[in-house]
């Protein structure tokens, strides 16, 4: 579906969203005040951050944490908090430091 429609005739019938996962086009990254920084050298790939991230923002590749989807990560800090205490491979950093 087109995002900006000119006429009601362009909408799918019945108010449905006729494709999956269109919310990816909506960026929630700017809600963040703290940014998770992932350190792949420390990471033991236990995937705790991945299973608990409410925003599906931990991106995996071949079963390993590849990166964090900063376009959608809301900066809740669950990932950093859940990362095993002995590992602490994610650090929450003030978003202002990146401006």
């Amino acid at each position: 579906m087109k995002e900006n429609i000119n006429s009601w005739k362009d909408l799918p019938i019945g108010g449905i969203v006729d494709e999956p996962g269109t919310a990816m086009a909506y960026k929630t990254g700017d809600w963040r005040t703290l940014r998770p920084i992932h350190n792949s050298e420390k990471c033991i790939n236990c995937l705790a951050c991945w299973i608990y991230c409410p925003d599906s923002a931990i991106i995996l590749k071949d079963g390993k944490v590849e990166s964090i989807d900063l376009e959608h990560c809301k900066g809740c800090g669950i990932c950093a908090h859940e990362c095993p205490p002995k590992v602490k491979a994610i650090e929450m950093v003030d978003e202002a430091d990146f401006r």
Partner: protein
Amino acid sequence: MGKTRVARTGNEAMAEAIRQINPDVVAAYPITPATEVMQIFATYVADGLVDTELVPTESEHSAMSAAIGAQVAGARTMTATSSQGLALMYEMLYIAAGLRLPLIMAEVNRALSAPINIHCDHGDTMGGRDAGWIQIFSENSQEAYDNLIQAVRIAEHSDVLLPIMVTTDGFIISHAMEDIDIYSDGEVRDFIGTYKPLQPALDYKKPITVGSIDFVDYYFEHRRALAQAMSNAKNAILEVGREFGSKFGQEYGFYEAYKLDDAEVAMVCLGSTAGTGKDAVDNLRKRGIKAGLLKVRVFRPFPAEELAARLKDVPQICVLDRSDALAATGGPLYAELLAAMFEDRADHTVINRIYGLGGRDIKVGEIEELLSSQVSAAAGGKSIDRIGYLGVRE
């Protein structure tokens, strides 16, 4: 064409149509006088005469919710109800229409509480008139049967995709035995065709999201599309009615006109009262009063232009409403017809009587007297009220 002449009550005729339609899913809950439709149909399910999954829910709200779920999933789905049951569904009626689901309902008209009353009036159906459902009224068992068969094609028409209710009058039709023509299963199935859902939710390979939330940026456009579907239903109803006529013999349109061409006074009504009205018209004509009758078959979409055009040359019009809008300005059929006729600026007198609430009988003589007094008032005799009640102890 294979027709069989059989004696059927309105409920039996509706159940027979549902058997022939052989819906994928039926979800329903019992309520007098519609209960029997589902009871009879349940025996068809129990005897393996249909492929239907019957979902006997714990309430009408859930019946309509399950029906919506089934139709969204991709199933041709039907239900039946009356009165309080329809009222309990109201929230879901709007949703079925908004989701553009061609659900089909057999609605047996019954008064709404309070006081609780199991007999006929149109208050229940009228409560759902702005919900986005197509509404077709039936005069007798034959029409109930014919209308339900046509309902499938109208609702599923690609320009329409709206839910539809076909109504009969509680007890007066639902429980009265009449001789009707039943068509062969094969011919009915040919006529209705197979259901091809646009984007069924069961198609997990093409996942869709149904029932999302709109903010101010989209709601109006979605509702605009819904309104267009209802306008489009007008053509679909005529198209299907004509095709039905060429296949089964009886053609259907928005209304039936009875002795209307030269009428000086005409009554307008919905449902079974048309039968009583036709007798009154015949009697009045014998007495030299040129009476006529317009039976409105389709209430939603409201065929405003067509009704106004048909009544253009009738000076005296009497609208009989079997429900009260409690608006202090008469019944719903009256209000809508009046609005429709306003455009032509012709010189009519249109009066309204609310009658028959809670199953109160309306007699041929009462209609005769009403129409003749309207004619005499028009000729300068005793004046009569524009809006009023008929058959109540004032």
